[in-house]
């Protein structure tokens, strides 16, 4: 009964989503307040129904109700409890249900928290949100129904894909979806502004927190996914330029650009049209990612099952929403008012440059992801676009971007003084050059790693010195007072930028990693970077739904054992699949990483051993970035962009 109630609630949610679209939309066109008011309760109720439905599916997974096809195909009565819960979204149908759950949550959040805006803007935004929800609910019910039943029910399920039986599954998809779908809020507001033909004064203020929220979730989701791939795939990489990864990177880059342009728009009323375009782009790229991953165009652990019907359906949704939004943009953008003026050398100017560079990055990733697919579709030729392409194109864009970040922070709004900004950054320049020299002396090669690491250090020092300069007073007490008076968003900017620097440093350090593939003999030690690794024992072990062979390895330095790690190879009975479990120990900021392969009759075992200096900085940097974003999100003051340090009188804004 719980299961069927959940099924019915899902169907009702579709009916409500249609009502949430049609009634407020008509109301907004006919200027009718009562009709527009329907949007809020409809959005909240729709969310409650989908939550009920999601809860029912979770219940079916937890109690192993094998009368549901979805449970049979993705669960097993012996599966550990946590994977019974996270396994709900570890498959196509369940993950789409999570997608609409998050989508309706976003709708409900708009309904609850959007007090300071016109009824019309809210009604239109929620109508767009309702239409999105209706499209995806229809997709779920018609092509991917998680509540499909069978009779008679079998007695055992086929278990969850072993690669997904990991705590990462509990964190990565929900965060990623909060990010992807979070951009739907911004998209809906952009579409609402275009439909209504006017941009409210508070528009940027309304969308900025949502943009930040989605961006933070996406940042954490991508970082988590990358770390998961790193420790579970067993070959020590954390980013493979796989189309599925790019699918998450594209909206992230567009979202990063959006966070910055929305700041300009809120403070200076400039870049309005561009911000609206980015808002559409960020969510469009999220939809594109969903299409790539869910349609079966790609084969990957993310694709679950491919089915041509699903692909065509999602393609139709994609074309309708992206095409519709862009057409609306083309029709209405010209009529929107332009905002404040600024000189090229100013905070705004720097942010425009940032947006241009980020757009170039985004375009690169889009081309690198779609070109091979298009080529294969048209000519049947399979090519692989990977690290060489992306590194060649992205590094020359990303490094100047990193160089510009602290400079932009030092410039004031409206009109800045470049010479003064560079002057204030001299300590950062000196430290950066010194760091480059030190890395060069220590490691020697590769050149790119040394230069990137130097720029990363400069970025961290530069962005923090901006903070220090703003705080510096004549006495300790005065400094403290200034520190307390500094808005949270100033800390947010500096900390997020410093996080980028840390990630960059971690990426640069991959050039200094050490990798060996050896057939390890028991009790002999192998050099890996500054450490020696040896096998103490290799033995079998039985898990709840798998059996494994694990090796106990000691990591030594100068004869002293620093740590033991247990890389393992697991075999999952129900799916007859094997996967490796890497043995990882963090030493300082670097990690020793070991994965085992086949064992031989003479007692040796094949193993890949890595020393990865500073590798944890890649993910620590992402956490720091997200923390910076959260600080900025916590700052709910109105943003006012004044040329605080400009000596010249401000330019008159355009009227």
């Amino acid at each position, binding site marked *: 009964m719980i299961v069927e109630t959940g099924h019915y609630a899902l169907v*009702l949610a579709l009916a409500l989503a249609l009502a949430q679209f049609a009634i407020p939309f008509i109301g907004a066109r006919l*200027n009718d307040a009562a009709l527009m008011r329907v949007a809020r309760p409809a959005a909240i109720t729709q969310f409650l129904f989908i939550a009920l439905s999601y809860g029912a599916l979770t219940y079916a997974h937890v109690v192993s109700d094998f009368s549901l096809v979805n449970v049979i195909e993705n669960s097993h009565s012996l599966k550990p409890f946590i994977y019974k819960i996270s396994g709900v979204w570890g498959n196509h149908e369940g993950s789409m249900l999570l997608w609409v759950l998050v989508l309706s949550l976003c709708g409900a959040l708009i309904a609850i928290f959007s007090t300071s805006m016109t009824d019309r803007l809210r009604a239109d935004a929620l109508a767009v949100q309702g239409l999105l929800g209706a499209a995806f609910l229809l997709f779920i019910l018609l092509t991917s129904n998680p509540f499909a039943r069978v009779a008679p029910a079998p*007695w055992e399920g086929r278990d969850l894909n072993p690669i997904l039986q990991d705590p990462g599954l509990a964190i990565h998809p929900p965060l990623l979806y909060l990010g992807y779908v979070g951009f739907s809020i911004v998209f809906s507001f952009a579409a609402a502004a275009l439909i209504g033909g006017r941009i409210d004064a508070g528009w940027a203020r309304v969308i900025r927190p949502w943009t930040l929220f989605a961006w933070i979730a996406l940042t954490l989701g991508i970082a988590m996914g990358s770390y998961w791939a790193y420790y579970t795939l067993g070959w020590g990489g954390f980013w493979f330029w796989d189309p599925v990864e790019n699918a998450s990177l594209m909206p992230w880059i567009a979202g990063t650009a959006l966070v910055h342009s929305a700041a300009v728009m809120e403070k200076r009323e400039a870049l309005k049209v561009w911000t609206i375009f980015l808002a559409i782009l960020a969510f469009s790229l999220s939809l594109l990612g969903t299409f790539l991953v869910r349609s079966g165009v790609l084969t990957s652990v993310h694709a679950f099952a491919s089915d041509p019907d699903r692909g065509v359906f999602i393609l139709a949704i994609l074309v309708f929403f992206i095409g519709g939004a862009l057409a609306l943009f083309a029709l209405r953008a010209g009529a929107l008012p332009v905002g404040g003026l600024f000189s090229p050398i100013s905070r705004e100017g720097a942010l425009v440059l940032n947006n241009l560079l980020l757009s170039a990055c985004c375009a690169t990733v889009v081309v690198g992801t779609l070109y091979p697919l298009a080529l294969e579709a048209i000519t049947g030729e399979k090519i692989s676009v990977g690290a060489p392409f992306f590194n060649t194109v992205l590094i020359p864009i990303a490094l100047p971007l990193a160089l510009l970040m602290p400079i932009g922070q030092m410039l004031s709004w409206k009109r800045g003084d470049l010479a003064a900004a560079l002057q204030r950054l001299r300590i950062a320049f000196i430290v950066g050059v010194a760091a480059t020299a030190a890395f060069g002396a220590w490691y020697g090669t590769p050149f790119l790693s040394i230069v990137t690491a130097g720029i990363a250090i400069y970025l961290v020092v530069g962005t923090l010195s901006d903070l220090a300069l703003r705080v510096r007073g004549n006495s300790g007490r005065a400094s403290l007072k200034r520190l307390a008076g500094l808005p949270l968003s100033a800390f947010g900017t500096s900390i997020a930028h410093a996080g980028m620097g840390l990630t960059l440093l971690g990426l640069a350090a991959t050039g200094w990693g050490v990798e060996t593939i050896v057939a390890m003999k028991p009790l002999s030690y192998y050099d890996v970077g500054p450490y020696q690794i040896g096998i103490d024992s290799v033995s079998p072990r039985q898990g709840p739904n798998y059996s494994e062979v694990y090796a106990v390895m000691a990591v030594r330095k100068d004869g002293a054992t620093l740590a033991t790690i247990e890389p393992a190879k697991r075999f999952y009975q129900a799916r007859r699949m094997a996967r490796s479990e890497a043995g990882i120990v963090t030493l300082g900021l670097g990690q020793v990483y070991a994965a085992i392969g086949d064992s031989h009759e003479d007692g040796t075992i094949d193993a890949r051993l890595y020393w990865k200096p500073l590798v944890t900085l890649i993910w620590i940097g992402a956490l720091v970035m997200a923390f910076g974003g959260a600080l900025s999100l916590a700052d709910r003051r*109105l943003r*006012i962009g004044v040329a605080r340090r400009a000596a010249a009188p*401000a330019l008159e804004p355009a009227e």
Partner: protein
Amino acid sequence: MIWLIFALLTGAAVMAVLAPLAMRNGAQDESAADVAFFEEQIAEIEREREEGRLDAADAGAAKTEAARRLLRAEAAPKPKVAASRKLALAAALAAIVVIPAVALMLYARLGHSDMPDMPLTARLDSAPDRNDLSGAVARIEQHLREHPEDGRGFEVIAPYLLRTGRGEDAVHAYSEALRLLGATAARLAALGEARVVVAQGVVTPQAKKDFEAALALDAAAPEAQYYLGLAAAQAGEKDKAIAIFSKMAADAPADAAYLKAVNAQLANLRGEANPPVVARGPSSEQGKAIAAMPADQRQEMIRGMVDRLASRLESKGDDVEGWLKLIRAYSVLAETEKAKKAVTEARKALASKQDDVARIEALAKELNIGG
């Protein structure tokens, strides 16, 4: 009961739309939000100036800018927003009709309101259905999880597990039975046999050890002897294999069921120079020729034969032996879907003959392809 819940949910959905339509108060001034925003902004500038974070000149300029925008917002043409009773009534009627209609129509197509929840533990605790063998096995497995010291249970389900393709689980069950109930020649031989099945007919060193242990307990154990003979044949020790099989054939009682298999092995070993030995060697001339082919050619040949059989049965379905052969062949080739289809077609083709259908059903049950 479930329809009551559905009715309540539908009512809640419709109410969510009706409530705001029924409210009387109304129209908001369109520019109010903009005006409020600029007023707030001006207040913010003032506050920052007081806190000393803005100097007076900057604050003045910013305030002028905000004030100018405020005036413009107030002066902007305002679309008339009203709340029409007629429109609200129309929307309410549409909601009352359309929401339940959409929900019920879709659910009638997709839903199974007659199917209750089926949590696994409740199903395991409920009264068993006599004809449901897999249910019985699931119950025993559940019981064994709770009482892992019940050797009899393991011994009972092991053969079933082996037959339904869960070889590793069968090996596990046989070894548990062996550990808990003590070693006998029959248990050791059964364990070894399960290992051979898992290894797809190859007598692995581990299986060999089991058979040797079985022989140590009972020198006459036929399964153990047979598989050790097979092991010798697979290892290329032809003479040893022939010796073992000849001894078995000589010692066997005349009506022994395994005699046929032993003789087939012997014929194989003596007949061909180097025939590939599979667990159940083919005995006919054609079979031997097929067995001597390279693996991929052999596979192709077998498939060709199966396809010919299938098309023959399609035109002339009145041949129960043919159907049985076809179903078995698909099952051996691991083409479960085709096997199921063949079962269904056989039922149709043989519908007039009760006995033949019963044989098909029995085979389908044995191979666990239900259909």
